[in-house]
């Protein structure tokens, strides 16, 4: 492991921002600390950087315990949430600052700063001040400023929060490309799961100071280990029970159910592909159809509960009030009276022996 946090605890008064956080990230990987606001993810990042001191636990970078090493000596580049560019310095001076305070050779410094400016594609804007730049350009400067001294680890605190939605997507791709180009290990904090899924090799999900789950985006999506993760990732409906649904009679009373749109299949009565599974379906009425660009989002009333699912635009058209067959092939179960319990998958018993992924 290149970067490791071991049993990190941190309290601010009564508020526990980190409750024994443990994780490690391999060299060259990009990890996301993902969680709702106030979950403690920024605190964890700041402890890693040395901007905040943990109450207990160890921070290890490249096999070395850095607990007592000040932030400036940890070899870390940090991109602040609002970039914290020096308002009274030009783009050039902003990027050169780190080298200047380290008393780098003037000639080399100039070369390195210019190299950075051309890397981020801001040639010609060296003499501008931060308030003369767009949000995206500011982020580029912040990125260049963070990596100019060649740090081994790059930390980014909500790198896209200050940018409007339109430019955000484009910048995500840019940042990913840059980080791969530079080949630097990086960790970023975000509350946006799309961002985490798109950028990160590993996602670390934080909630109320706890590490809920760590893994690749796919594994977190497909195998959520805790009720929180099951809720937080993807869109989902939560139901108190599934009474009246065929194939789910075996669910213990008291357990709650999380249903994702992709667990729900909706088709017309005369559908050919699912004709052998008609016995396992329920009748549902379309309550709402929302156009989502490349697909439709259907809200179905089934056995007195509302389920959400998606439908490809390539399929036959449907209308509100239409009766459809609804196949629920699996759900997540959890027990919210028992925090220790992991979320589990429960498959529709009527589909035993059927591989739904093959259909």
């Amino acid at each position, binding site marked *: 492991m290149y970067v490791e946090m071991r049993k990190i605890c941190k309290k601010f008064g009564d508020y526990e921002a980190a409750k024994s956080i443990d994780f490690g990230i391999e060299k060259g990987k990009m990890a996301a600390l993902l969680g709702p606001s106030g979950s403690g993810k920024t605190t964890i990042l700041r402890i890693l*950087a040395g*901007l905040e001191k943990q109450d207990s636990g160890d921070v290890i970078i490249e096999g070395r315990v850095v607990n007592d090493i000040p*932030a*400036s*000596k940890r070899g*870390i580049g*940090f991109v*602040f949430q*609002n970039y*914290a*560019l*020096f*308002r*009274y*310095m030009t783009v050039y001076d902003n990027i050169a*600052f*780190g080298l200047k*305070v*380290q008393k780098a050779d003037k000639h080399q410094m100039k070369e390195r700063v210019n190299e950075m400016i051309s890397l981020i594609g801001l040639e010609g804007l060296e003499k501008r001040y931060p308030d003369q730049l767009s949000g995206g350009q500011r982020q580029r400067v912040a990125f260049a*400023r963070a990596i100019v*001294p060649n740090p081994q680890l790059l930390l980014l605190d909500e790198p896209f929060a200050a940018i409007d939605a339109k430019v955000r997507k484009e910048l995500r791709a840019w940042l990913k490309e840059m980080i791969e180009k530079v080949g630097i290990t990086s960790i970023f904090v975000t509350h946006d799961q799309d961002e985490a899924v798109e950028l990160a090799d590993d996602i670390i999900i934080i909630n109320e100071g706890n590490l809920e789950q760590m893994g690749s985006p796919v594994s977190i999506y497909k195998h959520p280990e805790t009720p929180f993760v099951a809720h937080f990732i993807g869109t989902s409906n939560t139901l108190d029970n599934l009474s009246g649904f065929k194939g789910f009679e075996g669910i213990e009373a008291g357990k709650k159910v999380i249903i994702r749109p992709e667990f729900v299949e909706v088709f017309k009565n005369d559908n050919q592909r699912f004709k052998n599974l008609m016995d396992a379906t329920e009748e549902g009425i379309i309550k709402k159809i929302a156009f989502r660009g490349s697909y439709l989002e259907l809200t179905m009333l089934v056995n007195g509960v509302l389920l959400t699912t998606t439908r490809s635009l390539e399929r036959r058209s449907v209308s509100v009030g239409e009766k459809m067959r609804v196949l629920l092939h699996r759900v997540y179960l959890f027990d919210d009276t028992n925090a220790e319990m992991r979320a589990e998958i429960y498959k529709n018993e009527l589909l035993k022996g059927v591989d739904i992924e093959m259909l």
Partner: protein
Amino acid sequence: MKERREIIVKWMLIGISFLFFIIMLVLPLLEVIVRALADGWDSYCNAISADHTLSALKVTLIATVIALAVNTVFGLAAAWALTKFDFFGRNVLSTLIDIPFSISPVIAGLAFIMTFGRSGWMAPVLDWINQTLGTDIALVFSVPGVVLATIFVTFPFVSREIIPILYAQGSDEEEAAALMGAKGFTIFRKITFPHIKWGLLYGMILCTARAFGEFGAVYAISKTRGETFTLPLEIDALYMTGSADSITQAFAVSSLLVAMAVVILIGKNIVEYYGRKRK
């Protein structure tokens, strides 16, 4: 109908403001100039070059320069402490800074006498210092006392100007600089100072203006004309003498203070102009 009423209100407010301004400020100040020159140019020059006047001018300048220097340093330190650190007693300190604004300056002067005077509880400490160092420093009825009183009444100006700027700025930029390895003084010089430059200058100007004109606190602690009197005290003394000549002299000396005030006012406007432009 509504529009007409608005116009009437507008001109009424403008009229009242101007009337107030003329009666309360312009006419009295003109009166000072007119009275100062009532006995002609020669006697005006004599009045402002009299020994007592020059001594008072000197004391005023000494007190102002020292108060300005001390309050700039302490104001910066206090503003920095209040905005960048979270510590026990922060709110108390924040309130204490404003005391000179809320307390009558005379009380401040009297408090100094009670503390440092012959029967004050600090007197033995002062005696001990004087004996040990072989000095002869007296704080009450002396120039150092005048300086102290001036420092006291002008204390809040610098810090009160900077605190809102530092609050608004937050500490992100400083943190970023520290992370890159910059040390405390470099951070202050390169990052913080450019932000507070104009506010600081503005605070210093207000501090200077107040130090020139301070009367109450200095009055309590300064009793020797020609030695520890400041310009406002000298004016008061001349005026209280009551003869026609000395009253004219009082106005002549007053015109000095008015001139200093005008210079400060111009400086203040220049600073405000550039401060706004930079934003």
